[in-house]
């Protein structure tokens, strides 16, 4: 039988007050340890106590806070507490079709990194967050990766050149990299276990040297050539018909490469699974994985297939 807590017992528990300037509110909360214990109590036994300790200590690096936003928030719900987040962009109306941080019109024009930081602290005020509002650039890329060192890099940037550079450095430092890409209603997941094997090629060799070299000379390219490169980055043969067609319409009839909210959240969910498994030392090998939700229509079964 569960004993009802008495007021006397409550008095013994240390509590704290948190002042949130963006809400202009003072919130009375439990101390850090008890807060974490209660907050993660429904994770047990899907996540064991010893596993939860590992997740609490792990430091996650998230670059690109469009899909990085729902990924970060799901990680906080799971019980992760250490983050480095980076994005140089502000929230725009066209983001409101998918971003969790776009739930409020009042936030338009605010930094995506700041909004994500606030949301993380809204869920757990004891989280430690390094916020890079300038995004990732030549000056701060080393600091982001190793000062202090991140345990895994979640790469969701738009900048093709930085996507290559951050991988080259992650490879050098032995940091695993994970990326989820929306493919119409489906998701492609790329996992690079530089922690296990620093000799694997960038993006597991899916990106040919010719494309990498072209990306490195990006400044000299036209808008159409850049879009073609983004398509090459994702590799046409894996793309759905509608997404493939969309690439040629970007800048003409379309404002950008199309993305839908359900796929953003699907990406967040599947990324949370892989991040947890990798950090808990489960056997997840480098490679490209596919989550084809469209198969649900035909098989009533979703499979994650590895290429």
């Amino acid at each position, binding site marked *: 039988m569960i004993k009802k807590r008495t007021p006397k017992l409550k008095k013994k528990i240390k509590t704290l007050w948190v002042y949130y300037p963006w809400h202009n*509110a003072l919130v009375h909360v439990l101390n850090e340890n008890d807060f974490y214990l209660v907050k993660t109590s429904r994770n047990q036994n899907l996540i064991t106590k010893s596993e939860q300790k590992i997740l609490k200590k792990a430091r996650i690096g998230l670059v690109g806070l469009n899909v990085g936003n729902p990924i970060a928030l799901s990680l906080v719900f799971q019980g992760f507490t250490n983050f480095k987040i980076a994005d140089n962009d502000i929230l725009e109306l066209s983001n409101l079709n998918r971003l969790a941080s776009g739930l409020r019109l009042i936030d338009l024009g605010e930094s995506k990194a700041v909004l994500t930081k606030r949301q993380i602290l809204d869920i757990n005020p004891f989280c430690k967050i390094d916020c890079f509002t300038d995004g990732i650039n030549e000056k701060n890329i080393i600091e982001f990766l190793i000062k202090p060192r991140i345990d895994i890099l979640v790469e969701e940037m738009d900048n093709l050149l930085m996507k290559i550079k951050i991988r080259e450095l992650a490879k050098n430092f032995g940091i695993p990299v994970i990326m989820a890409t929306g493919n119409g209603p489906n998701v492609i997941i790329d996992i690079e276990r530089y922690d296990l094997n620093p000799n694997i090629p960038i993006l597991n060799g899916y990106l040919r040297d010719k494309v990498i070299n072209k990306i490195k000379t990006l400044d000299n390219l036209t808008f159409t050539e850049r879009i073609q490169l983004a398509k090459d980055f994702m590799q046409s043969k894996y793309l759905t018909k509608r997404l493939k067609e969309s690439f040629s319409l970007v800048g003409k009839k379309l404002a950008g490469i199309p993305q839908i909210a359900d796929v953003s959240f699907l990406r967040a969910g599947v990324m949370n699974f892989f991040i947890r498994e990798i950090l808990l030392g489960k056997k997840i090998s480098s490679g490209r994985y596919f989550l084809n939700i469209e198969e649900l229509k035909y098989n009533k079964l979703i499979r994650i297939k590895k290429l």
Partner: protein
Amino acid sequence: MDFTNDILILDLSKTKHQKLFEYLKKKNIKIVDTIESQLK
């Protein structure tokens, strides 16, 4: 510290924090006590 985007965690067993707490309370802010619901 970024006073717009950083939170303050106040431990009222510390005198310094008590003073800050009293100061903030006077600033017409919303006070939310979540302890009851956290202990359920």
